[in-house]
């Protein structure tokens, strides 16, 4: 039967079931992925972010919330220019992490 509507997917991030393989692998080689304090400096300075929605801060969260596909899509915008790495107050090696995510 056609109802003209359907069940909408839950917007909840279901932390019990999300797949964190990529993030956990990343954490092994880059323990500093844990140290983000979400200040947003990386996003504010991002060269690609000037033209797109690219945000490394969000990208890290996407990986931690099981949205790997979204994260990988976002990386495609990156120019690897390294400004984010320079401004990160926690000294996170962002360029390396970006590359490692795609490995």
């Amino acid at each position, binding site marked *: 039967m056609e109802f003209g509507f359907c069940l909408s997917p839950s*917007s*909840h*991030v*279901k*932390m*019990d079931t999300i797949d964190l393989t990529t993030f956990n692998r990343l*954490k092994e080689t880059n*323990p*500093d992925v*844990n*140290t983000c*304090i*979400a200040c947003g400096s990386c996003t504010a300075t991002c060269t690609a972010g000037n033209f797109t929605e690219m945000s490394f*801060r*969000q990208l890290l*969260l*996407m990986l*931690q*919330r099981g949205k790997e596909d979204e994260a990988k899509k976002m990386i495609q915008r990156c120019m690897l220019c390294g400004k984010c790495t320079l401004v990160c107050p*926690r000294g996170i090696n962002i360029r390396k992490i970006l590359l490692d995510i795609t490995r």
Partner: protein
Amino acid sequence: MKENILIIGGGAAGMEAATQLKKLGLNPIIVEKSDKLGGHIAQWDRLFPAFHPAKDVVEQMLNNVKDIDVRLNTEVTDIQRNSDGFKATLSNNDTIDAKAVILATGFDLFKAERKQEYGYGIYNNVMTSLELERFFRTGKDDRINNPKKIGFVHCVGARDVKVGNTYCSKVCCTTALKQACEMKEVFPDAEVYTFYMDLRMFGPGYEDLYLKTQKDFDVKCIRGRVCEVSEDMDGRLVIKAEDTLFGKPLKMTLDVLILMCSMEKAKSIDKIQQQLGVANNSDGFMQNKDMYLGMNDSKQDGVFVAGTCTAPKSLPDTIGEARSVAVEVFNYINNR
């Protein structure tokens, strides 16, 4: 010069003030309602930011007050001002004549059951920060059975108009991270989450603790207040919160949830406070004369305040205040 100074409260502030007053040649008398000195700090296992055993600090303080007149299991039931100072009646019917009174009555921990949505007292595995300290001290708690997922909720009873406490309780952020690390030490395989609103790492070494928490202990800090806790069929806790940095609500199952309860002014002193004419400020703590130069003075002559009875404070803050109140009282006695 052996004037009596009545100190109500035998916690960190009371003990330290007494120690200093004794050194200054006065005669401090501590009235403590419980059966031992030390207050809340004596119930703590280790102290932030460096995981220093609280026992060391408490023992040192206790050692300092060895020769001081301490009345345990005693409360001040009545206090009257007279030409000579104050006359206090104690619950054991003793009376004390004192030239000055120091209120060092500290705080009550926020009653976690007041935040009904967290289910403290209803769900088996919800506990408070204080109870967790007891677990660290004794290694025993029925609620902690090799948990795999552990959650901490910050600001329980703080920054929350719904419970009438709009202030920040100052020490819970650092305490939460400390306890999160300690849980990770005890249960290395567990995942530990903290749900914070802001992480207020205000003191020396505190930010380092934060970094350590993230990097070495792999504690996951999620910005967002837990809004709802329920129990699933296995008695595990299902919590909901928003990851405000990610902009999405999240749901997860935890084995134990620890509520970081805020400080509220100790209620048991209300009557004495009233008799002395010491008002409360808008946060419900005792009003001091002013927050810069008169932090140890109440608005009443001869009545002094120290420690967390005026606002949430860390231990070093409290000790600092206890020392300064001793000097204030000393000057007050000398200039009378």
